[in-house]
């Protein structure tokens, strides 16, 4: 479901991604590891078109991305099938938890308001937050906010989920509740790419690990081989 072929990206003339290819199983949980500045997050952002690239190609969830700017329609179609969870959650502070999750089904999925809210309610129950639907995101703990963000990304029923260091902004006590949700999704067969520093999590959940260093693939293989 995900293919990356010799992807290169320049920023101010410097290669931040240099001929990166993915050799692992297409439908799987892929972990991107490596030191800070190695290009993990940039690679992830290329996968849903938040960043453009100069050479190579990406196939993801049946869409093909090529070098240069992407057409607006291509991006809208792509993002219906590819959900993303950010390090800083990026929940919408002016909307309730329920409306955060229901916004995309309503606007992008064109569901009726009641139907969108029903779907949002079900997802919040799945991440264990059904009693917080009316709350504002700012009143929740970091772990709770990140679980809302996961529910929000799942609301479009994406074929691929992208996680950008989903636990780095959290206190240690809260990482577990978020990782449990992600591991649960993985076990349920959700295709995903996770940028992480957490090797224990990678060993537990990932069936393919890619280690990046200075924009290049240093190693890739199963968790047992790489870590």
């Amino acid at each position, binding site marked *: 479901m995900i293919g990356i072929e010799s992807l290169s990206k320049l920023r101010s003339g410097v290669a931040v991604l240099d001929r990166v290819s993915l050799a692992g199983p297409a439908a799987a949980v892929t972990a991107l590891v490596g030191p800070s500045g190695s290009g993990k997050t940039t690679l992830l952002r290329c996968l*849903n078109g*938040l960043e453009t690239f100069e050479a190579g190609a990406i196939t993801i969830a049946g869409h093909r991305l090529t070098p240069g700017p992407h057409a*607006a329609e291509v*991006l*809208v179609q792509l*993002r*219906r099938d590819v*959900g*993303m969870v*950010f390090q*800083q959650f*990026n*929940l*919408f*502070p*002016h909307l309730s938890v329920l409306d955060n999750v229901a*916004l*995309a089904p309503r*606007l*992008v999925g064109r569901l009726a308001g009641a139907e969108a809210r029903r779907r949002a309610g079900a997802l919040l129950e799945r991440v264990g937050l059904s009693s917080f639907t009316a709350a*504002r995101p*700012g*009143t*929740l*703990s*970091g772990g709770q*906010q990140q679980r809302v963000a996961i529910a*929000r*990304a799942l609301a*479009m029923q994406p074929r691929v989920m992208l996680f950008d260091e989903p636990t780095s902004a959290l206190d240690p006590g809260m990482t577990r509740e978020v990782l449990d949700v992600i591991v649960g999704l993985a076990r349920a067969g959700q295709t995903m790419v996770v940028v992480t520093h957490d090797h224990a999590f990678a060993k537990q959940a990932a069936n393919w690990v890619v280690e990046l260093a200075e924009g290049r693939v240093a190693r890739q293989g199963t968790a047992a081989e790489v870590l």
Partner: protein
Amino acid sequence: MKGVGRAVSGVLLAAGWVAMLPAGGAELDEVRRRGELVWAADQEGGGPHVYPDPADPRTLAGFEVEFAALLANELGVRPRFQQGQWDRLPLLLGQSVDCVINGIELTPERRRDYHCSRPYFGYALQLIGRRDAPPAAAADVAGTGPSGAWRIGVLSGSAAESEMRGLVARGAAQAEVVGYDGTLDSLEQVRTGVLDAALMDDCIFTFYADRFASLRAVDRPFAGGLYTVLSARDTPLLAAAIDEAIGRLIADGRLKSLYDRWDLAGRQQMLLLRDATEIPAARQRSLLELVSQTLPLLLASAGMTVLLSCAAFPLAIVVGLAVAIGRMYGPAWLRPLLTGYVEVLRGTPLMLQLYAIFFLLPKIGLALPALVAAIAGLALNYSAYESEIYRAGLKAVPPGQFEAALALGLSKWQALRYVLVPQAVRVVMPPVTSDFIALFKDTSVCSAITVIELTKRYSVLALTTGRIVELAVVTALLYLAMSWPLALLSRWFERRLERPAGGRP
């Protein structure tokens, strides 16, 4: 003992203070000691009275400039000109100005409130129209005009204005009377077709007739009166000296030859002045009478202030938001245009923008009613400020919000509509509310384009009644009654925003 001592020293102090005050009449000595007679006029009022000399705009020309020079010469001093706005000239008396010489008509109210000299000039009121359009005769204004009531322009606070309003009140004219700050403004508006006619002192039209070739005098002049030199009530010796000086100028023919030089029919003027009858002073009205007579007018004008603010501000907000979004997210070719829009509107005075809309647009065939022009001008001017506030508000929304919305599949415009703008609005609410209060006060500028709101109404009433302080208190109370709810509203917004939204743990 101590208390008595203090009382005694208080009395001594008071006595010393009284001794320091100029005794009545010392003002004439003061003028002679200074060697200057300071006279006030408004050069915007134009010819033939007082206007910048076209040959050298740094100097003044006009028959009153020469009259003032003759008068000062009679008092043995030099004349010094002081610029002021015409309908506020009398307020300068007793501050830095000895007298006002600027086509000031002799009225019972002025006789009551100031020293009015013996008249030095006789005027008649002349109706001016377009050559190719009605009214054909002055009597026509008693019936209806081409489209309902006639629209007739006058100089604010002038005898033409009170004459015209008097005709309307008595049912002798069906007209909407529109007041302007300058005489030429109303002629300009007749030429462009915004007004049907203008009413003004005959000598003004005679002077400017060549510049307005498409206009004509309608019928013979009617009504009329006399110009007087105003001086303050507490300067009787100066007033007497001015009267004597005018008498000498009339007697020895210098005034007649001055008027002949200016094509003002010197012989007829002298006959008019010879037969001039004394005008009695008006009765002082009681405070209750004053308030009951002026309050309805003040309230109506306060309504205009509210209408202007409440119509202009929502427009300013919508346009400002569109401009802010266009500058930040619009196509590349649009951004410099919008930046130019903001800088031009912020960098030029609101007054000039109103003038441009009201006086220049009719020249390209787009004549807007004054109220529409005022609302449009306020809305455009404030849209520039609002757009800057919104731009700051949109910038204050973390960039991750936009990315998160895009990552969910929202289009750029959906992200703006549902994610960015609602958050920006919350941020900008306090500055926007305070801008509304600022706009509320800025509406007074609209009087420059004939819209009479509260401030203008106050200054006209204060001058015609002479009750400057009492009416100022009433007007201030009206402003307060309107701005107080606004202040409450803004505090309510602030409280709403201060309510803990909860920071991230």
